């Protein structure tokens, strides 16, 4: 159910198409699933993930909303409490800052603070647009915020295959799930079986086996890490690449096991370095894998700056494949 192998057909989809396929299947399969968000209907979604759904499923299931991020997440919570399985879309992760009270203070805590009485099976889909010259207010990526919101699951798919399988699981999950997509990946292609499959939430995936250096990469940087690994292997450096996929709950087992073997760790994530995912993961390694480390962990992340608009400056701002290669080299 969860292996990422070719299904034989070799069917290639983009990340956006894979997401669309998961949504489509869930809408078909379960009448409780509804979508809500800005411009998901007649506009087809800002990035075309929901194109054609309004026509097929109607406005009762595919709800175009006003520009009301508080209400989008709030209404999704209520709909979940009322027996539906809403998938709310927040067009840019930046706008999630407007709804974060509903997501973090309400949805994430409801099961706990009601003593287990309430369950909120909902998904909030969003995406970050770093790398597309969208400027300081439309490119932000701050997944580590949600580590401070236990009760919420947080998923970050890195490939079309994973996007489909993880989104299906997110929709079927009984908990609120924040599903963070990556704009730069929407057009990337990969093998996606046409049948339904679900990938489990809360399992880190070893995307490449290796013995010399462990790279934990997030979202867009998984592909970069895999390509870096290929380059490094020609230099005789054997890299293991791990994609946590779900950062909350975070499955540290494969990461610790890997470090036990390699003794060296690079973490690569697009958020700002201070207080980002790299720091969070690094600190968990400190708890459970310190003795395995032969060298300090290298935490590759965006610098602690707002995101510059200028495409050239933005490029310099972002973690690159070259950065990953250099970091791995530096460790061995």
């Amino acid at each position, binding site marked *: 159910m969860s292996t990422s192998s070719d299904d034989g057909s070799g069917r290639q989809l983009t990340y956006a198409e894979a997401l669309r396929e998961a949504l489509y299947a869930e809408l078909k399969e379960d009448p*409780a699933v*509804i979508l809500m968000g800005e411009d998901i209907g007649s506009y087809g979604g800002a990035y075309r993930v929901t194109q054609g759904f309004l026509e097929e499923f109607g406005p*009762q*299931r595919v*709800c175009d*909303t*006003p520009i*009301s*991020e*508080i*209400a989008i*997440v*709030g*209404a*999704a*919570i*209520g*709909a*979940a*409490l*009322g*027996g*539906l399985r*809403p998938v709310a879309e927040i067009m840019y992760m930046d706008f999630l800052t407007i709804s974060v*009270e*509903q997501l973090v*203070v*309400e949805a994430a805590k*409801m*099961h*706990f*603070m*009601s*003593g*287990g*009485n*309430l*369950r909120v*099976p909902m998904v909030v889909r969003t995406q970050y647009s770093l790398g597309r010259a969208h400027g300081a207010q439309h490119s932000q990526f701050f997944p580590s915020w949600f580590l401070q919101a*236990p*009760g919420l*699951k947080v998923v970050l798919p890195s490939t079309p295959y994973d996007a489909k399988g993880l989104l299906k699981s997110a929709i079927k999950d*009984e*908990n609120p799930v924040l599903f963070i997509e990556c704009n730069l990946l929407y057009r990337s292609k990969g093998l996606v079986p046409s049948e339904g499959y679900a990938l489990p939430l809360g399992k880190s995936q070893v995307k490449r086996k290796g013995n010399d250096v462990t790279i934990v990469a997030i979202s867009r940087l998984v592909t970069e890490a895999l390509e870096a690994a290929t380059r490094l292997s020609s230099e005789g450096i054997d890299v293991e690449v791990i994609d946590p996929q779900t950062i909350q*709950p975070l499955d540290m087992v494969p990461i610790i096991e890997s470090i036990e073997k390699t003794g060296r760790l690079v973490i690569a994530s697009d958020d700002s370095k201070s207080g980002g995912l790299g720091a969070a993961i690094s600190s968990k390694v400190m708890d459970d894998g310190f003795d395995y480390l032969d060298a300090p962990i290298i935490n590759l992340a965006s610098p602690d700056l707002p995101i510059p608009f200028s495409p050239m400056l933005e490029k310099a701002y972002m973690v690159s494949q070259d950065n990953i290669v250099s970091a791995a080299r530096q460790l061995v």
Partner: protein
Amino acid sequence: MTAPASFTDISIDKLRKEGVDDVRVMGMLRKMLEIRRFEEKVEELYLVKGQLMGPSHLYIGQEAIAVGILSACASNDLVISNYRGHGHAIARDVPMKYLMAELYGRADGTCKGLGGSMHSAIHPAKGMIFASAIVASGVPIAVGLALASKQQKKDDVIIVFFGDGGLNTGAFHEGANLAGIWNLPVIFVCENNQYAMGTSTAATTASANLVDRGAVYDIPSKKIDGNDVGSVFVTAKDALARARKGNGPSFLLCQTYRSKGHGVYDRSEYKPVGEADGWIDRDPIVRLRKVIMENRIATDGDISAMEADIAADIGKAVEFAQKSPEVDFRELSKYVYV
């Protein structure tokens, strides 16, 4: 803003016209008294006995709103309450012992002691779906519940309680607008008790007429005397019928007065001298009781017996709560995820 013109009476005739018989009128009195005595006991447990801790917001003076609205509801209707929720829960027949156990932080509490007073009104078994401690955050959630009801072609109407202060939040605005465009079965019950903490409504709410805060979203909106359980009941009946027919949301601005402080520790030093006195004979229980006596629905003795019964119930609730265990700390991680 001052008290409604000169109500000292309540709309008993309206109630009768709605087919509410004397037994049900007495039932309303009982609920209102249960709330009042429960809250008085809570106050005592905080301030005199020192057995309770943390924030708690009493419903004293506002009883006619919860009882009027919720008596008009069907049992499948769903309620979104808030941090001032004990009264909503009692009006909805949540057993007082579970509420009290929650206030004590015990395993038999409505939220197993994990919520506390501000979330104690969560009790799905009685249709008490949620209670947030964040002002007006329940509003969009209620709208979503109403969406679920409509989408699944259920008959449930959603009631959401919030205060006058909540009118100035983005959450209220966005939620009400959504209910308006989607024509959802939700009743916005604004309990205007004249204050948001220590700040008077008039100082913070820019509207010549507060009902406009519902009307602006094309939602039928009405200002009512929230201390008249009869008025509240019949207005709610109307709104419920409209919602059930698919005619969408209503906004009820219920004028009332917060007789006590904002929270149990607040001594209301900011209230103008004499202001509270103006509300004493508008007290919803005083008024209902007067009408009951005048209409010979019950005698002084009947009501005393009822009071004694309630006092006994509350005594038992406290005992129950005190004996209830705490959840084991090591069990807490079980409640984070389903």
